[in-house]
């Protein structure tokens, strides 16, 4: 199966004004294997999951998540952010096998 582990999307609403509390949504493609199951041939599937997520807005870390393999496959998260400056919003996802995946979006205000 051709799945691109680490392909990620970060979505913010259009038409942001300074001071808005916006919804941020992010999804990264990842199998999130628990390590508790076997493939159809009976071989154990090793644990492979995102366990650390860092969210920076400009030069501040505004959120940090600690996850287990209990998050669903292709883990999704939505939360709020006070858009008080024009800056890059960057997600860095790390998995338990030293995989590092990034995605960012620019927060810009409507004129």
């Amino acid at each position: 199966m051709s799945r691109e582990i680490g392909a990620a999307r970060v979505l913010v609403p259009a038409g942001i004004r300074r001071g808005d509390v916006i919804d941020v949504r992010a999804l990264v493609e990842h199998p999130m294997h628990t390590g508790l199951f076997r493939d159809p041939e009976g071989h154990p599937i090793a644990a492979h999951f995102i366990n650390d997520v860092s969210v920076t807005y400009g030069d501040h870390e505004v959120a940090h998540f600690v996850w287990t393999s209990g998050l669903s496959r292709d883990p999704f998260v939505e939360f709020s952010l006070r858009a008080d400056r024009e800056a890059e919003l960057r997600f860095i996802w790390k998995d338990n096998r030293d995989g590092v995946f990034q995605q960012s979006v620019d927060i810009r205000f409507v004129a």
Partner: protein
Amino acid sequence: MSGFSRRSLLHASGLAFLALAARRLAALGRPLRFDGVPWKVQQVLKQLFGEREIREGHVQLDVPTVAADGRVVPVMVESDLPMSGASFVRAVHVLVDNNPDIHLAEFRFTPEIGQAFVSTRIKMRMTSPVRAIVETSDGALWGTAADVRVTVNGCG
């Protein structure tokens, strides 16, 4: 994805919420009772929070009553506590009693978030209570729980 559905869900649950409001008001601030909490979960709570008391209130947890697919169970946690520099929600913890990893996720926030809210999707191995515990910058803990009935095992 689910921006609109979240709002409509909140709207739809408004009436039910009102009906519960009086009861919740009575419960507000009362220490959560742990008589019925399994020992393994109490151990996890002790590890996370020591002897600190978890009180009822200020946390809204939205989970389905029945999850047809335990591989993808939507979870939303929201708090009306302030998100200002002086006082804010420092972390939202999600625990599932009957999962292999009971402390499923921790979402750490800063005041720059503006509002204590998080929505995600989790796996559930079997029917279980789901717990949401909010930790404030001054160390206070607020929690709630809801039962989710799982009809298809989700840890595969």
